């Protein structure tokens, strides 16, 4: 794959999902910190939006495997190349794992997975308190890990855009054209 930039569809998905995932992380930590009626409002966004992210992430992974990604700059030092690779794998993994964990933990709790009135997903695991305990902990801890990886990713993107100015940011920039200089 030698295109200079991600395809418009890949860029659209990247930015749409970036907004959704950041919203999900703030909704997640916000909801578990409140007893107010906002709790139910946030939970009722968290579940359907999380499942939407799962579907979009699978679509996006398919696109990525078919269409590939533009090459990184040839002068990018090897450790940064490795960091980029590892963090992108982690981001794809978390985009798919987090919603599956949410769905699986509610299944293990025997708690109905209602996306909205009338739309209920089937359980993907049998009821098990022990499985629930593990999955619930994983959903929480990986949620924080997700936020940390996103911060690092954001820092790296800004580093490419502002300091190295090597075209990596432009490869994913929402609007084509102008290099940032």
């Amino acid at each position, binding site marked *: 794959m030698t295109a200079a930039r991600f395809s418009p569809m890949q860029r659209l998905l990247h930015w749409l999902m970036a907004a959704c995932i950041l919203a999900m992380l703030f909704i997640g930590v916000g909801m578990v910190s409140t007893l107010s009626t906002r709790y139910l409002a946030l939970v009722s966004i968290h579940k359907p939006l999380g499942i939407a992210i799962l579907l979009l992430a699978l679509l996006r992974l398919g696109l990525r495997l078919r269409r590939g990604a533009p090459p990184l700059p040839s002068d990018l030092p090897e450790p940064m190349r490795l960091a980029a690779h590892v963090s992108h794998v982690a981001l794809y993994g978390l985009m798919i794992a987090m919603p599956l964990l949410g769905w699986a933990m509610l299944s293990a*709790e025997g708690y109905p997975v209602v996306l909205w009135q009338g739309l209920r997903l089937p359980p993907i695991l049998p009821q098990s308190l022990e499985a629930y305990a593990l999955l619930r902990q994983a959903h929480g801890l990986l949620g924080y890990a997700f936020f940390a990886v996103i911060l690092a990713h954001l820092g790296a993107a800004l580093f490419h855009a502002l300091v190295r100015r*090597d075209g990596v940011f432009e*490869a994913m920039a929402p609007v084509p054209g102008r290099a940032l200089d």
Partner: protein
Amino acid sequence: MAQPSRPSRFPLGSFVVIAAVLGGGAAAFAYTAGWLSPERLSRERVLAALSPPGGPAPGHRRNHTKGLCFTGSFEANGAGAALSRAPVLAAGRYPVIGRFNLASAVLAQPDGQARVRGLSLSITGPDGSEWRTAMITAPVFPVSNVEAFYALQMAARSKEPGAMGAFAAAHPEIAAFGAWAGSAPWTGSYAEERYNALNAFLFTDAGGRDHAVRWSVRPEARPVPVPHEQLTAKPPDFLNDEIKARIAAGPVRWTMTVTEAGPGDPVADPSKAWPEERRTVEVGTLTAEAVQEEQDGPCRDINYDPTVLPPGMRPSADPFPAARSSAYALSYERRAAEAAAYPHSAPGGRP
């Protein structure tokens, strides 16, 4: 484009921008998570306030801790369809997993000393949707909102002599509950109690109209008043023993009733009763058919979250169901993490 890099000649400013963006993001996250505002009323603080002197019993519920499972059925007569299109209110017979319990966070609470008793239900409708409800014997809740609930727990556990008096002075709504607790007769059986959901919910009928409602189950068995001293003299588990024996001899029944709010009735405040004459519909019969010890019973691992509702029912302006859902989730998370401390007595003991 993989163009050769043209590094910025003044990177310092760029690094400041990057640090500000990352720091700002992390701070916003910490703020949202409540880490910067420990004075906020969190579910962790509410559970801490409920915790008994020796700490919570590991693996057990953080409130209404002592309980007994039962299974049975809910036979809807179809009359509830006038208020809600919930499949579980359409005429038919639906399975129930329930739990008799005491309103106390102490696992070893003697049955004769709990003023308030509870009944929890999970009813699965014909479409597989569930209706969960956790009801109590009090006809009104002691307080109007979650902050007052927390203040009440803090006053109750306070060692200062005037703490409860000061609470009652600041929260006069507790008088109605106090009057009930002081005067209502005690009974010697879970089967002779009426249980009230207290919180108001919105039912939506087939025509799309909303009805603000509260529901109760009324016992078929005639309540026999028993002097309190007589109950405290009984063995600590007499309620459990009594209901086991009673159900072994035959099913125990309640009539479920749904009461609709009139115009102006307080929907958002479970400490205020609605007038007696409000339209009340008998929607079906609850039958308890078999009892199981909680340790091996099907109710052990259920979170009786009052916001688990079938289509056609949803929370109202009442602030309690949201707070309960949040607090019960943390209670469930904690007792699940401690599951090893409360194992089944026999492998496969649970149906």
